[in-house]
């Protein structure tokens, strides 16, 4: 089946940004998750952390004004906000592993109902590269995933068991997809649906989800602005 009315990446990022509290310490994965920073809620000031030793960075500099000693984990040039700090890699990952980050937001290949995450490797071909993903998923207080609800060819990315190599075991706490917001109940190893697109039936959502969706009380409408 296909679902025509889905959120785009901007809208998924916007929805994730709504859950970031003022003053939260946040690490955004390379690529899609970086978009979350653009949708910071008015009046809130999250503090962004990057693995290579910067806390409190801001937007990218203007083209031609890059300083290549001032980059983020994606090796893109950044700028600093007042109150920023530099530190070495051991301290940077002490922040991650030690539970000091409030939320890490990552992309996913697959998320299982118990919170297992696969997002670093498709198979055993090519050059493997892991970066800081395995540290982030085992360290941050909340581990949120941004993802299309299904793969390009329509297969579920929310599954009962990951078939790709794992990044972490029972680590994901919330999933923001193109169709829904789903919590992981790690105690019981199950997905709990919190919000879904109002035009989408429960049955249609379940049909594109690879593990049962449970509910606890009401399921709210997932409503986001037009963004592109």
């Amino acid at each position, binding site marked *: 089946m296909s679902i025509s009315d889905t959120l785009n990446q901007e809208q998924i990022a916007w929805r994730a940004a709504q859950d970031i509290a*003022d*003053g939260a*310490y946040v690490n955004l994965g390379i690529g899609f998750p970086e978009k979350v920073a653009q949708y910071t809620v008015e009046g809130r*000031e999250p*503090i962004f*952390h990057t693995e290579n030793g*910067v*806390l*409190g960075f801001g937007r990218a500099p203007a083209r031609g004004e890059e300083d290549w000693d001032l980059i983020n984990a994606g090796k893109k040039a950044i700028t*600093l906000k*007042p*109150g*920023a*700090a*530099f*530190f070495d890699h*051991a*301290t940077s*990952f*002490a*922040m*991650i*592993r*030690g*539970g*000091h*980050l409030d939320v890490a937001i990552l992309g996913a290949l697959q998320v299982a109902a118990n919170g297992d995450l696969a997002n670093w490797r498709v198979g055993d071909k090519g050059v493997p590269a892991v970066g800081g993903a395995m540290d982030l998923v085992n*360290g941050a207080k909340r581990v949120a995933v941004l993802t299309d609800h299904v793969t390009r060819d329509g297969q579920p990315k929310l599954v009962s068991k990951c078939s790709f190599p794992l990044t972490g075991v029972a680590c994901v706490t919330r999933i923001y997809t193109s169709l829904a917001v789903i919590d992981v109940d790690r105690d019981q190893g199950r997905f709990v649906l919190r919000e879904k697109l109002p035009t989408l039936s429960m049955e249609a959502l379940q049909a594109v989800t690879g593990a049962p969706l449970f509910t606890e009380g009401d399921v709210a409408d997932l409503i986001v602005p037009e963004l592109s």
Partner: protein
Amino acid sequence: MNKQCASVAKAVADIPSGATVMIGGFGGSGAPIELIHALIDAGPTNLTVINNNAGNGHVGLAAMIEAKMVAKLICSFPKSKDPRAFTERYLDGRIALELVPQGTLAERIRAGGAGIPAFYTPTAYGTELAEGKAVAEFDGKPYVQERWLKADYALVKAERGDPYGNLTFRLAARNFNPLMCMAARTTIVQVSQLVPAGDIDPEIVVTPGIFVDRLVEVTDPAQEELLNEAEARYP
């Protein structure tokens, strides 16, 4: 965001009886005297305190012990010029002591802050301070397994701080303070100077603000050594 508290009293007001509290400093250097005295005023009891020492004279940690607030002390060197507050209570069994080699104490606190539940060290191998601890061989040499140390609260003294909690420390008053900032659920810092965000060069920040929860400005803080020279007593 602003982590500033209005007073030392407010900064420590919620520390409950039974809490584990790390207190920075090495002897009097870097000891957060004003925060400690505020905690004495607040009066929680049955505390486990983690500090390198066990107090000197009748101020700071020694005064806390005299106020009967400390049930257990985890430290490396419970001696000082005037260690009577601790010594008397230890010898008659009113206060428990976990003695930890100084480097192991520092590393256990860092491990608590860094999410490392256990590590191996050569320190104390073959001595009574390793009794009951797991031993493992690496590359043919024996090492002792040590566990992380964490706390509910840390009381820390720093030199400059900004509203985000970024800190610098003065001279050798740094010692255990940056480590304890990392290892407590709630880190409370007295700074001699609170400065606007951006005033501390990001390259010279010693403790990044992520490790700090509350800041209170205490200008011209007391030095334990000088209080003791003046034979001060708290309260």
